[in-house]
């Protein structure tokens, strides 16, 4: 056998030599024909070519784009874009296409010449052989990592470590050998004897009728045959370690790649020297003035202090100052009044409601799952919203804030804690951040592994854009086109989340009844019971109280009932012959199965008449009926007070995740290399392993996300602090120092003031990651205190205000506008927190928040179901959270005008505003107008404005009087009221209310 083999080998070698010679001849003379037998020799012609032109990036140690051209196995497997060679068909072979078009190699001088391209072409045409078949065969030997993905895709949903259907676990070779109820699944060397292959070939496995239920696709014949081949080879296992960062320098990301400013830690910056030193209130101004002065500009004059008051109020609380607060500030003329104002506002509970909303946009907060028509509600999502508001109000350090959201479940052992403290509960609630993506995997038909990967991809997208300032999602299907993020790094990141987000071990959203075809999955949902012990006790106490009260009511009724029944029984017995009475009583007291023959006989004759139950009693005793009905009503009312057990929508590591493979083109049907957890190499030195250990001794959790959270909150992290302070800046100045706030990469927009950004980022970290300190710094700068007026010179020299030569004029966002309309009309209910307020949907599709007698709460407390967004939000650029929103638009469109002019709610609030004016300013028109300006615009009207108001009110009153008279119901009081309401409505529509100077 061996000899035969080697002689074939020899023949082949000779053949290839011959053909090599033929090529040379063919090149010299005859025109080449397609599919000619002149195959270039791989070792002599092709390999050297590849070695000199391609291996630098795609061979052996460096495998850019996941492509290794140094082995046939590597070529056949291909890279991120799939196989690069289709033997026999150069037209379909990516390798040929790339070199033919001159797209590869990338350097101009490295390109292949025409003859060289032709060698590759003919080599592919003739079948792309590399040498003797035995060699090829050994190169493409199948190992466990070729079959495991197949088993994960089709089998382990039932036969995995958790479910073990039929006591079978197919995730390891040992498990297959051990087998299940029907015996071993695997007989090495004999696919035909292996139960798993037999069942699959017969189409019994995976069971066709259960496929949809388990969201599993059927296996195709090719997949079964790969399994069979592996078994035929003896089911070999190769010792392959997952690809993770090591002490060897990363071959895919170079130090040059790490040179880009955003991938390097901020370095200390020295403050620039400026000429207008008198304008410098703090270092921010030096950085800003430096650039302005270079253009011959300076800071604009300081804004009027009442304008500053309004600006600061909206910036920090999203609401205008109330008249009393205006008065307080007006009267505080001592030095430091403005600084004291900022401190008061930062301490306001409204601060978290304003700034929490920005974070919720980044997280993609929603009260429903989206994607499907049912738009499954997330009834516990509000806890996360409250967590964000409270965290911001307490000025929780940003690094802690991130650690809780990224790995709260791994910060402390919540399962074995004797008591769930607020901190423990918050840790879990915080992980709701990673549960915000739209998700339809609760239904089996939209719950396939690919659908799950989409959810994970959305979460990575949220994480990348919100926290890291990176467009990570590009690397899902291939290496990032602009940033040095190899395909590999995306999957390393995926491996970090795998303990909690495993497409092959999935927890579905919790489904409640009546919501379409649901999965029969028994693995449980995404809610944890670990609310604070205090909340749990309150809930339990409430449940117990209800149970107790209910049983008291029942017992009372029961005893009454028993007395009455005894009474009526005596009466009925009294109507029967006396001799029978004792026997009848004995019969009634004996359970049916223990009665003797006589008793049974008596029962057939008399039991029906003598057995009085509650229904019968109610029929004969009206008083009892009334009492019983009352008791029932009380019980119903009591039961209605029961609450669902409090739970937390969370993400937690479940330990022992499935392996992570690179998915070529993002497709799980084309798995590539095995990778382990890691962070983007460009943000590290490329030669330090990523250190993962269990969060506490004996934890089942992998600790991967904790390691990630610790890494991302390192004080010297290149991006985290920069991205965070850039956002703080953005919401004060209307744009970030890096304008593309979600993309700090090479395709993003470079910072306008890089030194300022780095200085702020370092101040932030030095100050313990406290956001409020940065607000204070920004808002007390001369830059922030500038006027927003635009001069002709500024328009010319600083057209789009890139240099901050003035403050921008800012339109209120959807929430600030809505909340303001409520506040000024005196209808703002300032109750904080708790489950979201419902909305009303009118038949024409208009969605409005539902109010109560107390009015309406701030918009952040209104339910944000993806398919029932309040119309007001939609009109004013509230984004669809798909999956999140990095920056809202600031549109000016007709539907906004239509809403503010025509919507019933705005009319109602106009009326309420008018009533408030009458309450606070009495009946005098001029006083009403003054008050309206103070409340709505934080200032008094000019004489001209007051005059216009008086005239308008005069005309309106006349017209309303006339209109009311024409309708046959003249009413001077009502005419006055309506005209004031119309005036208020106009103020609510005015540009002065909508724009902040």
């Amino acid at each position, binding site marked *: 056998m061996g000899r035969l083999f080697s002689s074939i080998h020899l023949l082949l070698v000779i053949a290839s030599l011959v053909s090599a010679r033929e090529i040379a001849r063919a090149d010299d003379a005859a025109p080449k024909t397609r599919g000619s037998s002149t195959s270039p020799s791989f070792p002599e012609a092709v390999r050297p070519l590849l070695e000199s032109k391609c291996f630098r990036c795609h061979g052996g140690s460096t495998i850019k784009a996941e492509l290794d051209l140094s082995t046939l196995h590597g070529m056949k497997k291909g890279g991120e874009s799939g196989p690069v060679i289709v033997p026999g068909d150069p037209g379909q072979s990516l390798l040929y296409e790339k070199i033919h078009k001159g797209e590869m190699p990338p350097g101009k001088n490295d390109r292949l010449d025409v003859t060289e391209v032709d060698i590759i072409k003919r080599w592919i045409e003739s079948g792309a052989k590399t040498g003797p078949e035995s060699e090829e065969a050994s190169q493409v030997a199948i190992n466990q990592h070729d079959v495991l993905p197949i088993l994960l895709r089709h089998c382990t949903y039932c036969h995995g470590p958790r479910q073990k259907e039929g006591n079978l676990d197919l995730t390891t070779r040992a498990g297959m050998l051990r087998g299940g109820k029907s015996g071993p699944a695997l007989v090495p060397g004999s696919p035909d004897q292996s139960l798993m292959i037999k069942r699959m070939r017969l189409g019994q496995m995976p069971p066709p009728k259960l496929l949809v239920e388990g969201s599993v696709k059927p296996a195709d014949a090719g997949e079964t045959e790969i399994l069979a081949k592996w078994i035929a080879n003896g089911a070999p296992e190769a010792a392959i370690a997952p690809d993770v960062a090591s002490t060897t320098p990363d071959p895919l990301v170079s130090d040059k790649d790490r040179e880009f400013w955003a991938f390097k830690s901020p370095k200390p910056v020295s403050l620039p020297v400026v000429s207008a030193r008198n304008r410098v209130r703090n270092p921010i101004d030096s950085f800003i003035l430096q650039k302005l002065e270079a253009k011959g500009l300076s800071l604009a004059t300081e804004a009027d202090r009442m304008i500053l008051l309004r600006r600061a109020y909206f910036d920090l609380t999203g609401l205008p100052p109330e008249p009393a607060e205006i008065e307080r500030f007006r009267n505080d003329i001592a030095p430091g009044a403005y600084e004291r104002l900022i401190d008061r506002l930062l301490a306001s509970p409204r601060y978290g409601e304003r700034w929490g909303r920005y974070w919720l946009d980044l997280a993609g907060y929603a009260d429903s799952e989206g994607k499907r028509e049912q738009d499954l509600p997330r009834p516990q999502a509000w806890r996360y919203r409250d967590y964000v508001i409270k965290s911001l109000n307490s000025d929780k350090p940003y690094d802690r804030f991130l650690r809780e959201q990224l790995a709260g479940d791994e910060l402390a052992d919540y399962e074995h804690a004797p008591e769930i403290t607020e901190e423990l509960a918050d840790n879990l609630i915080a992980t709701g951040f990673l549960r915000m993506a739209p998700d339809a995997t609760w239904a089996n038909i939209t719950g396939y592994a690919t659908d799950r990967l989409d959810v994970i991809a959305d979460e990575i997208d949220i994480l990348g854009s919100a926290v890291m300032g990176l467009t990570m999602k590009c690397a899902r299907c291939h290496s990032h086109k602009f940033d040095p993020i190899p395909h590999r790094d995306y999957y390393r990141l995926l491996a970090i989340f795998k303990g909690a987000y495993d497409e092959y071990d999935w927890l579905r959203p919790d489904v409640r009844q009546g919501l379409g075809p649901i999965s029969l999955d028994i693995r449980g949902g995404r809610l944890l019971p670990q609310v604070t012990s205090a909340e749990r006790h309150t809930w339990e106490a409430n449940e117990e109280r209800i149970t107790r009260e209910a049983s008291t009511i029942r017992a009372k009724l029961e005893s009454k009932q028993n007395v009455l029944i005894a009474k009526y029984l005596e009466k009925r017995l009294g109507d029967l012959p006396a001799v029978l009475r004792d026997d009848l009583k004995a019969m009634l007291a004996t359970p049916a199965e223990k009665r003797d023959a006589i008793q049974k006989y008596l029962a057939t004759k008399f039991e029906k008449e003598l057995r009085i139950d509650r229904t019968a009693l109610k029929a004969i005793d009206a008083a009892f009926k009334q009492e019983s009905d009352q008791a029932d009503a009380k019980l119903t009312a009591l039961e209605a007070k029961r609450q669902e057990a409090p739970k937390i929508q969370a993400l937690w590591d479940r330990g022992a995740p499935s392996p992570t493979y690179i998915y070529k083109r993002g497709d799980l049907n084309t798995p590539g290399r095995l990778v382990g957890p890691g962070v983007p190499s460009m943000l590290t030195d490329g030669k330090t392993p990523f250190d993962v250990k269990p969060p506490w001794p004996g934890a089942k959790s992998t600790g991967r996300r904790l390691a990630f959270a610790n890494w991302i909150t390192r004080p010297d992290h290149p991006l985290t602090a920069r991205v965070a302070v850039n956002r703080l800046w953005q919401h004060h100045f209307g744009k970030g120092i890096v304008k593309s706030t979600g993309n700090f990469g090479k395709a993003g927009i470079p910072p306008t003031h890089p030194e300022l950004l780095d200085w702020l980022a370092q101040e932030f970290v030095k100050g313990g990651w406290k956001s409020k300190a940065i607000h204070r710094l920004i808002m007390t700068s001369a830059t922030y205190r500038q006027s927003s007026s635009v001069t002709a010179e500024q328009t010319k020299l600083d057209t789009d205000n890139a240099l901050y030569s003035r403050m921008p004029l800012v339109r209120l966002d959807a929430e600030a506008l809505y909340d303001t309309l409520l506040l000024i009309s005196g209808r703002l209910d300032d109750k904080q927190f708790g489950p979201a307020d419902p909305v009303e949907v009118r038949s024409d599709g208009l969605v409005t928040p539902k109010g109560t007698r107390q009015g309406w709460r701030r918009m952040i407390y209104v339910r944000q179901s993806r398919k029932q967004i309040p119309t007001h939000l939609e009109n004013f650029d509230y984004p669809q959270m798909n999956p999140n929103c990095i920056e809202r638009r600031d549109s000016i469109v007709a539907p906004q005008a239509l809403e503010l002019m025509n919507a019933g709610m705005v009319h109602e609030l106009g009326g309420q505003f008018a009533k408030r004016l009458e309450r606070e300013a009495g009946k005098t028109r001029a006083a009403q107008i003054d008050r309206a300006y103070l409340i709505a615009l934080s200032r008094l009207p000019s004489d001209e404005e007051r005059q*216009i108001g008086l005239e308008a009110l005069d005309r309106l009153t006349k017209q309303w009087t006339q209109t009311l008279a024409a309708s046959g119901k003249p009413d001077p009081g009502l005419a006055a009221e309506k005209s004031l309401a119309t005036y208020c409505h106009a103020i609510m529509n005015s540009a002065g209310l909508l724009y902040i100077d």
Partner: protein
Amino acid sequence: MAESTQVNRRSFFQRASTGLHGAALAYLLAGEARADASASPHLDLKPRSPHFEPKARSVIHLFMNGGPSQMDLFDPKPMLDRHHGESYVDKISGELEFVKDAGALMRSPYKFKQFGKCGAPVSEVMPHLAGVVDDLAFIRSMYTTNLTHEPAVYLIQSGKMGPGRPTLGAWVVYGLGSENQNLPAYVVLDDPKGMPVNGVENWEAGFLPPNFQGTRFRSTGSPILNLKDDANRPNEIVGMERDLLSRLDQIHKQARPRQPSLDARIASYGLAARMQLEATDALDISKESQETRDLYGIGREPTDSYGRRCLIARRLVERGVRFVQLYINAQIWDTHTSLSSDLKTACDRTDQPVAALLKDLKRRGLLDSTLVVWGGEFGRLPIAQLPPDKNEKRAGRDHNKNAFCTWMAGAGIKGGTTHGATDELGLNAVENRVSVADWHATILHLLGLHHEQLFIDLNGLKEKLTGVNGARIVKEILS
């Protein structure tokens, strides 16, 4: 300049209140609208030149949400008659949503006949459409990638199987703007009986600016949300409030020179007022002749509702609206049960109005510049889907992502064409397969837009309707 604009606006209000509508008014106001539209280029609704000479100026998309059954409408399958009752389910178990209800192969309950010069077969449940087949180009070989409504609807509307992307109509008006500045460029006529699957996401602008999203016109009552004053105040009062507001805003603006957004905001109030007038007029079908209304089946059941929407669609394209999209409530084409009666009901509601729309556009010369597109999000399976009681008389068909049939008519379309084919059972599109991206590219092409050149830069990526995998224009159906 500010003053003359003001005069224009005032005279507009005077004329408008005496009832001047139509082209003259549109012309009068178009200049104003152009002047005060938002500053950034390509982000407004001004008319823009296409990439090349277009065949179509407007599109009417008759979206048949639910998945109309190809083998019972336009793609007859004699093999189904022959193999009726034979089991087939094992061969397609991965392609079913409701495996437990799967029955045997099922023939169509309807008869087919060939019509027109082209001889295209049409089922007996569409007698009116049968009369205009020579204007239609059928694509029998469409396929999609998911067999569930939501993802499939997302795909056909926006090119991707999830929410958050601009829809076809949004891309079109992003590319071309609109001919009429007093009406939205992209109008949606949804069914007053209820929203389609995915609701308002069907006409969202995704990452394009929000002014490119579809605007819902209700075919009865107030056509746009908040178009009517909820408080029902007398016109005089509304006029006075507008006047007051405009004076206050002028003062505000004059104190803040060089702030373009303040001008834009004032303009948006003007447009809102004009929309209130012109939208109301466009929807007023009482101005149509009795003959026309009869043609569409208006005033009669079951055609009244869809007939109204078809007629309004014509009135809108007549006024230069770029993209009109019609919907039907819920899922009337989603015939999981009782195919033999339910599919007929769906046809009875739509057949006459659709045929009338084509005839009416043609006789007014509008069909030369209007592309009419008909189709759903996927097709249906050749096997029966049985109700819980397994009564075959009430059998329907389950979803099929691998084959469905659509048609186009009008501007640039070679009438009487049939493109592509399914296999002998109608299970898979096999010949000249047309992807959703191909279908999108073809519609864009007819409008003079190249699908690779119509993009928006997003984080360094050129986002396109047709995605990264390329698309082929279905040239075979073009005239």
